[in-house]
């Protein structure tokens, strides 16, 4: 195959990609550095536990998200009952609840001094705390993750189920197979790739989590990386531990990538996509469906939100202070700047693919958007290593030449943090822009050009109006993700710079759960916006 020559635009995209991913390459290069005593110690003691805990977490979360997500998707896509349309989007609400925040609320509710155990003790005496399960445990973490991550499985499974044409089920029945058997022999296997893709996303989130496992005292890779970095200050071991976690993530990414392609082909394969007519449920059956679907919404959103509201109400008097507004200002301005920077990068990449298509762009863009799968803890560490090195070099040189100390110009400021966010959330922005640009067919460009529009007037008169909502959505999605992000911010924030997420984390860690309610509630409330956008997007695609 002969490649066209690269233009300056291509080189710009390549350069941006290289810069964005430098931290990851630096991290991987530590594989070739001989390990030290810390590593030997770690490998002999804690590492097996990290691996075992991570695997148990993944198995448990797989079970939990599948058992909640698949039946919900099936009920919504193939049955009709009262409140179905409400459930269709309400099932996404737990996505607004970050895992570490739901962990705080259930700790507050279920701990020894919490209302549930106190109430039980009043009826049954002190024996209750003997058998009452400890929420701050591996099992508790699995439950928390399952409750907030099942929407990934639900979302993708529902998409797959509702794209399965009516004919598939009819043909199965004419071949003598009952409706129930058809679910297991046709619907489920055909949806399997989509379900696996959703599950891989949920598991990536599980591996990336830091706040929940740290709070519950379940030692995993992320807590290990955090401890080695902040406690031991050992760059080498931190990097090597990170690369090991990246291997797990990489496997999940490959599974997700492969499954998505397969899912796409399964749904494209059918020519006519008349969705099957929905089966009406009445009486007991409708009641059971409603009860089943209410369960994850109650446990994953309503109850924890209620707890946060309760805490906020009781702490509002001292909680809403100048410091609180400073937190809001810090969080919102940081998230907004990060969203804009990410959007600019995404625009550059999206338009490069459209305006100067070249075979080299496909792999380049895929690499540039790898960040979505990389846990925030790792990104933080990976960015800090080269940035600190540059800072130190610069500082030494400036001292040498001019006797001025520049200090930590990059690593100690918001620049490093914004860089890290941009890498982590670039793929969200790019995906949103790409789907927006996809609506603008190349023939529209061509007809505008034949009508005499210049490049500039094409952008301002055709693209901008059509892309407006995609640009807005991309900004909002990145904004909210940054607001929720905990480990990256925790590790990289400048000295004395607090955000809502960091504040909630620190208060919870200090056993001041009630005080964490206010910042946590604000995070959850903003988290609802993307859920609304998501459900609107799905509705507009015309799936009833």
């Amino acid at each position, binding site marked *: 195959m002969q490649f066209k020559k690269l233009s300056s635009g291509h080189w710009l995209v390549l350069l941006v990609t290289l810069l964005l991913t430098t931290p990851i390459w630096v991290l991987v290069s530590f594989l070739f550095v001989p390990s030290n005593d810390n590593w030997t110690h770690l490998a002999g003691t804690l590492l097996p536990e990290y691996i075992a805990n991570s695997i148990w977490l993944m198995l448990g979360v797989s079970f939990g998200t599948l058992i909640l997500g698949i039946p919900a998707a099936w009920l919504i896509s193939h049955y009709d009952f009262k409140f179905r349309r409400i459930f269709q989007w309400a099932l996404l609400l737990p996505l607004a609840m970050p895992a570490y925040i739901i962990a705080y609320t259930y700790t507050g509710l279920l701990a020894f001094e919490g209302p549930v155990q106190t109430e039980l003790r009043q009826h049954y005496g002190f024996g209750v705390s003997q058998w009452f399960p400890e929420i701050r445990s591996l099992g508790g973490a699995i439950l928390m993750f399952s409750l907030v991550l099942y929407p990934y499985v639900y979302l993708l499974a529902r998409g797959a189920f509702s794209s399965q044409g009516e*004919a*598939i089920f*009819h*043909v199965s029945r004419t071949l003598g197979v009952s409706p129930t058997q058809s679910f297991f022999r046709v619907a489920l296997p055909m949806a399997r790739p989509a379900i696996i893709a959703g599950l891989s996303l949920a598991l990536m989130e599980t591996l990336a989590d830091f706040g929940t496992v740290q709070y519950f005292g379940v030692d995993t890779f992320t807590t290990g990386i955090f401890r080695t970095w902040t406690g031991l200050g050992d760059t080498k071991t931190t990097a090597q531990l990170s690369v090991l976690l990246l291997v797990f993530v990489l496997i999940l990414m490959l599974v997700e990538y492969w499954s998505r392609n397969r899912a796409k082909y399964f749904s494209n394969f059918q020519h006519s996509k008349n969705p099957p007519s929905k089966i009406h449920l009445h009486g007991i059956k409708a009641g059971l469906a409603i009860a089943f679907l209410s369960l994850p919404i109650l446990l994953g959103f309503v109850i924890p939100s209620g707890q946060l509201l309760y805490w906020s109400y009781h702490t509002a008097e001292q909680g809403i202070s100048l410091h609180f507004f400073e937190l809001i200002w810090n969080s919102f301005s940081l998230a907004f700047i990060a969203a804009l920077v990410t959007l600019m990068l995404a625009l550059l990449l999206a338009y490069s693919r459209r305006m100067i298509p070249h075979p080299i762009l496909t792999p380049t863009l895929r690499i540039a958007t790898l960040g979505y799968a990389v846990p925030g803890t790792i990104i933080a560490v990976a960015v800090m290593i080269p940035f600190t090195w540059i800072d130190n070099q610069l500082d030494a040189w400036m001292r040498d030449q001019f006797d001025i100390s520049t200090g930590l110009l990059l690593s100690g400021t918001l620049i490093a943090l914004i860089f890290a966010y941009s890498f982590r959330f670039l793929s969200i922005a790019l995906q949103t822009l790409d789907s927006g640009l996809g609506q603008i067919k190349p023939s529209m460009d061509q007809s505008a050009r034949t009508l005499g529009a210049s490049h500039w007037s094409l952008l301002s008169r055709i693209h901008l109006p059509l892309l407006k909502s995609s640009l807005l959505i991309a900004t909002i999605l990145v904004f909210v993700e940054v607001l929720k992000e905990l480990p990256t911010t925790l590790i990289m924030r400048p000295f004395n710079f607090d955000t809502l997420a960091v504040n909630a984390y620190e208060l919870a860690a200090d056993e001041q759960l009630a005080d964490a309610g206010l910042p946590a509630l604000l995070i959850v409330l903003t988290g609802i916006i993307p859920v609304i956008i998501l459900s609107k997007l799905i509705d507009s695609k015309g799936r009833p």
Partner: protein
Amino acid sequence: MQSLDIEQLYACHDQDTILNGIDLHLKEGEIGCLLGPSGCGKTTLLKSIAGLHPISHGQIALGNKVISSPEIHLATEKRQIGMVFQDYALFPHMSIFDNIAFGLKKLSRKQKTERIQALLKLVGLEGMQKRYPHELSGGQQQRIALARALAPKPHILLMDEPFSGLDVELRESLAREVRAILKAEGITALMVTHNQNEAFAIADSVGVVSDGKLLQWDTPYNLYHQPHHPFIADFIGQGALITGTICSCRKVLTELGNLKTHLPFGVVSGEKISVLVRPDDILHDDDSDWKLEVVNRAFRGSHFLYTLKLPSGETVLCMSQSHHDHPIGSRIGVKLEMDHAIVFAKHK
């Protein structure tokens, strides 16, 4: 294989009546075809037979067994009906072997393999069992869908627009191929389509459906030459309706002359009626003294189709050989070659 008997079938969807008193009989081994425009109810009729659509009145029987009536509804999976769908609905996650084996129960692995080999041979796709649906062309997928439907030896085979997803050039040849397969196996089959070429290529008998009614159930030849209804005259083949006046019990007077005919029931002498004139009833002849004005013309490669104006202003179609090139506005000589006129009572 069994016969199919449908009596006074009515079916509704919400408030609308989709099927409006259908009577249909298909003998064992006969291939029938329902022809009609989209939305006429033909697919609903097929789904009613398959048990995928409820009926409100009448009954459907396979052999001697009633499978659908307002009181009886045998579940689709118990009817032993084979069905080929418009988009084939092959299962994309299964190999060809597993697709065909889907409806085969209570057979040993060896029996299944034998049956599938035989079916693949029947549809001319031997050695394909390990492939996946997306690796096949549209025509091959269509034949696999047929093999899958035939695998459990159904009482009757139903096909819903089975050729509509294929290239136009392929449709008729595949339709003839499918007919050969069905005839070789002696299969009773009912197909629906909106394409008359497909219908004529595959079926022994064709029924024309309009507005939920079966207007005529006949051989393709009779549908063209002896349509019972103006809708059929219009839907099958080309033609024009001109006005005629009955002058005796066997004769109708038109601008084209006195024509022999069979009168429809209930018309009386002196009454105005419609007369069907096919393009092949009027031949172009340069030597003829009878000249008509060309008002429109279409070049069809092998022939010209002229629209000619009669003195009264009504128009008829005339087919001429390809090299008889006459401009619009000119007057060309024609002669009538119709030994028997088809007439319809005028709708008031």
